[in-house]
């Protein structure tokens, strides 16, 4: 699933949901790193809508700090 040839917001969001949900189901180091990388790329590329959805949807099921990198970047960009 995760390759985003045509990066519409909905598509980007569903890829994020996929990474987050997969880690929730199988919390391995590898899955977490992939999720972390996706969050980082999402912040870098400015898909803040996806980031907001992921936080709302999964923050309670993900390790604290998953979105810390995002917080730093967002602050940096403000």
């Amino acid at each position: 699933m995760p390759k985003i040839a045509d990066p519409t917001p909905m598509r980007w969001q569903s890829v994020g949901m996929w990474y987050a949900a997969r880690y929730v189901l199988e919390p391995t180091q590898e899955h977490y790193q992939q999720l972390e990388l996706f969050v980082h790329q999402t912040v870098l590329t400015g898909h803040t809508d996806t980031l907001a959805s992921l936080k709302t949807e999964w923050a309670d099921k993900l390790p604290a700090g998953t979105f810390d990198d995002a917080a730093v970047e967002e602050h940096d960009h403000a």
Partner: protein
Amino acid sequence: MQLLMIWLGALMDRDMDLADAIAPELTSSFKVPRVKAALTEFLPNWQFGQAVYRWLHVPTADNSQRVVKIIQALRDLGVETDAHWFELMFNRVQVGKVYHNQHLVDHGVHIQHGDTAAAVVHNRRLQLHLSIREVARASSTSAIRRFESGQTRLSFGSLVRLTGELGLLVSQVLATPVPAGDGSPALLTLRTTFKRVNGLDRARALPIIEQFLQQQPYMPQKTERAERLILLAATKQGLVDDAETQQEATELAKGMLQMNLWGSLETHATIPLATILPPAQLSLLFKKGWRVLARHPYTVGANYYFWGMSDAIRRIVRNFDAEAAKNFFTDV
């Protein structure tokens, strides 16, 4: 969106007076979470523009690196079109030079909104101060005159040439039907009806749904049932999860699995189906959809497929046992 494009153009020309003048309005428009839904698809352009803007004001290696990192992130995720476009743009910025043509005169032309293809073409032609004769090579003077006055239609080839003469895309002329402005009701599409009833209280949505369904009296019952299911799912109350709905959903999914080309109905249908079907069926459905989209990237309403996909993931992870959920992720 137009303002964002002008701003990016100003950055490419290093026209900092213009860029500085526009930036505050854009900053306000793209402020999260207030950013409007229609603008979200331009968030990456805004992000890229901001990085370039920062580099133009403070041309350090760090700021340049930030621009390069955005391009690299897009490339890593397979978004080659945007990566390539941003790369070309950044190359252009580095050699950009502001040039103002002092001979340009602002005629202050008022842009008229057109409700029909003919009106869009007519208004655009007047806006550009072009006579019918000047755009006639797209067709003929009389054909264009008759087209603009609604007396005839143009062949697709002529329309392509005419829009080209006027600097328009054919899609801008043949957009979603909108009210004609003369009081006559416009034809509703599934997409526009879906948007209208999305999140609306069911009691208020039902008359809109009926209006949509009644305008197509010759529609096969099977299609009408599918459209009703899709539109009811979009309402605030969603679908009632009973045996009848289950049956409708299963039949709809079965049909979609047999199709190699999806249209608006099928892409929209993934949303109600995501809330009704069990994980194993959803897995088959989304796998099929993925293959269809891979083969036909410009499938109408592809976004709705991804909307349905997000809903399916959310529901499966939260409402089903881990094994069923894992199978969904392995399969899709």
